[in-house]
């Protein structure tokens, strides 16, 4: 039986894996692309899901994950250490939370 709890994410390796970084993104979104580029250029290890191409089940989970943390359904939404939620590509906030 398929594990329904595991969301399908794409992992991008990086030397800095101090924090657990998960990004909800849209595949066509320029701000999401910039956020991914920012993390990659700063060698941050992260996982991401492109919400527009994921399955319905995962999409529901993402919606709940964002709303339950007080976020908005705007992308990119970055969740750090399962605790801090950053809406939009906010470089300053990302640097602060990721300590870079």
């Amino acid at each position, binding site marked *: 039986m398929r594990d329904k709890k595991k969301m399908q994410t794409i992992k991008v390796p990086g030397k800095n894996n101090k924090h657990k970084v998960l990004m909800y993104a*849209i*595949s*066509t*979104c*320029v*701000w*999401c*692309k910039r956020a991914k580029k920012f993390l990659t250029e700063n060698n941050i290890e992260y996982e991401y899901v492109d*919400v*527009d191409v994921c399955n*319905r089940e995962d*999409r*529901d989970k993402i*919606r*709940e994950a964002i*709303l*339950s943390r007080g976020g*908005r*359904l*705007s*992308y990119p939404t970055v969740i750090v250490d399962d605790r801090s939620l950053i809406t*939009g*590509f*906010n470089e300053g906030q990302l640097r602060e939370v990721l300590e870079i």
Partner: protein
Amino acid sequence: MITLEKVRRRAESDAKSHGYFLNPDAESLKNLLEGLQKNEERYGYPSCPCRLASRKFEFDRDIICPCDYRDPDVQEYGYCYCALYVRKDVFEGKTSVLPIPERRPFQKQIRSYAASGEGVAEKPSEATTVVTEKPSKIILKMWYCKQCGYVCFREEPPYVCPICKAKREMFAEITIHSDNHK
């Protein structure tokens, strides 16, 4: 299949007619145009590349490019949400392009999100405090601009009349109830 060149020409034409410019950053512009092209291919309409489409035209009317929120965003910030359309000062590099807040109403986002899940029960987690409205029934309204007579058919009036630029307050409505718009 729509070509990238056609998407570009359409955006250029629309920008010109409203006194706007397209994003001056070549890479961003290419990504934005490709995003619009992709959305038009997969959804049948060019919804905003930076917003999650519901795949249902009725729910996504307000985020079809140029979106309902473009004009007020360009007016306030100098560029729209995805930054495809920019003001002259932004085009000339005098104003930086940074992410701006989403102007699309939150409840609209929620309903649109729910609409994308055909046949899936809406069961927010216990921690979720937002109540999701059922998307099965859309109240469509006919809106007309009292200033120029422009007529449109949608849930809410546009922020700005696309013809005469009258504000939202200038729109009057005739309500029509319609069931099962998928």
